[in-house]
């Protein structure tokens, strides 16, 4: 609503001063977020300067991480973070959207609301609990049943080669998927609920089956919202620390195989920051934090762009 303005500043109402104060106060709070972000970026850059000047661009392309020799490069962590988050999204998105569709379109509304509240309950579980479950229940199960089976039947593929350790990129991806499903589902559900009933009725009136109705009338309408939900999930997946650390195996290596252990950026920060052995070590960790921030920023920009391009297409269709 850009054109609505109240002229409280000039009118001699007794509340005018309060309004002005309120305006300044809210403005200050809004600005403070930007200021905090600015201070954070400044501080992180300053702290990572020793590492940036020492390793330069090699920090992004190299894969040696040795605190004893003080030689640091971050590619395995970058790889681990991006790959685990993207794979988790690929796994979680169809499941979440399908769950949301079931809740809003297919299930009886009593069953639907029950499933919805159960999903929201999942979202409230602290990540360390997921991690414990992952390391005590899921990883052994993967090691004993799933991974040997994969090796026996698909071992010729580079994605499933190697030994079954349990903790692995695969375990990390699965735990991340489980953790982001509730978020994507809950938001997608809200989006689908916002689809006007008239859309559905129109599709049914034209003789559409339920699936056709969902495909023609519901999903296109909610497309940008669902995309937003997926991006939020991706953001959470990239930043997730505790649960991933516990199941991913924490070995800084780049391997195509989903069965081999990997490492992520938040995990290495959480693991090593408290006991850094030198200034350069903590500086290198700080630089990883900076890279993580940049990656998150890039993800958000891509998300904005995607949502924008999808909405543009949508208005064309609707009009």
């Amino acid at each position: 609503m850009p054109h609505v303005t109240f002229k409280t500043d000039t009118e001699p109402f007794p509340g005018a001063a309060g309004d002005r104060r309120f305006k300044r106060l809210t403005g200050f709070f809004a600005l403070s977020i930007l200021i905090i972000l600015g201070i954070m970026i400044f501080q992180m850059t300053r702290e990572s300067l020793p590492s940036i000047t020492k390793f330069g661009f090699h920090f992004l392309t190299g894969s040696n991480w040795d605190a004893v020799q003080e030689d640091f490069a971050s590619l395995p962590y970058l790889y681990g973070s991006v790959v685990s988050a993207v794979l988790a999204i690929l796994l979680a998105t169809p499941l979440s959207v399908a769950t949301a569709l079931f809740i809003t379109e297919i299930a009886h509304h009593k069953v639907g609301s029950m499933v919805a509240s159960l999903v929201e309950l999942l979202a409230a579980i602290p990540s360390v609990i997921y991690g414990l479950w992952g390391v005590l229940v899921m990883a052994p199960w993967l090691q004993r049943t799933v991974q040997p089976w994969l090796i026996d039947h698909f071992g010729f593929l580079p994605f499933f080669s190697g030994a079954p350790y349990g903790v692995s990129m695969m375990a990390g991806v699965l735990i991340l998927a489980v953790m982001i499903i509730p978020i994507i589902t809950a938001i997608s559900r809200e989006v689908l609920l916002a689809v006007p009933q008239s859309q559905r009725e129109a599709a049914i009136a034209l003789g559409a089956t339920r699936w056709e109705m969902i495909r023609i009338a519901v999903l296109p309408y909610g497309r940008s919202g669902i995309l937003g939900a997926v991006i939020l999930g991706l953001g959470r997946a990239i930043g997730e620390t505790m649960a991933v650390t516990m199941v991913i195996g924490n070995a800084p290596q780049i391997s195509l195989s989903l069965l081999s252990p990997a490492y992520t950026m938040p995990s290495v920060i959480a693991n090593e920051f408290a006991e850094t052995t030198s200034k350069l070590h903590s500086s290198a960790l700080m630089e990883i934090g900076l890279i993580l921030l940049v990656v998150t920023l890039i993800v958000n920009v891509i998300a904005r762009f995607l949502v924008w391009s999808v909405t543009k297409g949508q208005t064309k269709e609707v009009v």
Partner: protein
Amino acid sequence: MLRKISALLAAAVFMTAGVASAEILINGAGATFPYPLYSKWFSEYAKIDTSVKFNYQSIGSGGGIKQITAQTVDFGASDKFLSDEELKAAPGKLLHIPTVMGAVVVTYNIPGVAKGLKLNSEDVANIFLGKITKWNDKRIVDDNPGVNLPDKAIIVVHRSDGSGTTSIFTDYLSGVNSDWAKKVGKGASVKWPVGLGGKGNEGVAGQIKTTQYTIGYVELAYAFENKLPYATLKNKAGSWVEPSIQTTSAAAAAAIKNMPADYRISLVNQPAKDAYPVVGFTWLLVYQDQKDKVKGKKMVEFLTWSLHKGQKMAAPMLYAPLPESVVKMVEKTIKTIN
């Protein structure tokens, strides 16, 4: 309204300040390993001297060193001793006060081998270097006659978080194997040649419990409490030693001849017959010249108490107490604090 709020805030600040000044608050931060013992000490000591209250945050040795150097705490705690450069960076003379000792045990999961697997220190290093890859390697079998070792690949598990436990363990490996010393070295976090990383003792132990044919290392106390199988290691004197409170204390007793006045000594691979080889001190870091003389006096009283009454609480909590010879030495050091 705003005025009311600020008045309330001011009142709140004054009130907390008033409460705090009723007793002396001594703040410390550092190592997580001795935290259970320290918190027991502080709560027991609070019953004896009600005028002083200790507040300890277990943020890790690295954090403890940073905070005591920056003087944001009254004492630090660390599982590793400070380097000469780190000591120089401190604004005053920092003393290392050893409190207790810890040991690191090698734990494993081999179905059919309950406990007491014998491992040569050289073999331990080669396993963690990735040079011994099978459990039925001749070098392991030779030390374990009658034990049925399977033809399975060894899965190595190490700590992924920086820790004093890793420091002691890699210090030990550097001492027994020159290849390890050259390629990997010692430190709170090192570049592991092989293996999986678990977070914390519980991460490593969880990994080993649930995965067959694994080997890893955890704190002695953690292994005992969780009844993990542990290996008997061959020490520098050539005898097989089981990890225990006694064999841990024995390592410090063996080192007394070479004990430097600042206690900055590694206790791994002591040449005594009964000394377990993977052992280390944990220290409190205190400035010799205390700015606040009242706090300093209270600190000395507490440290003296910890050397006598405190040491008796160590063994039941699975920390190795200081041997009598070291206690006598530390007593003198404490007296220099003023």
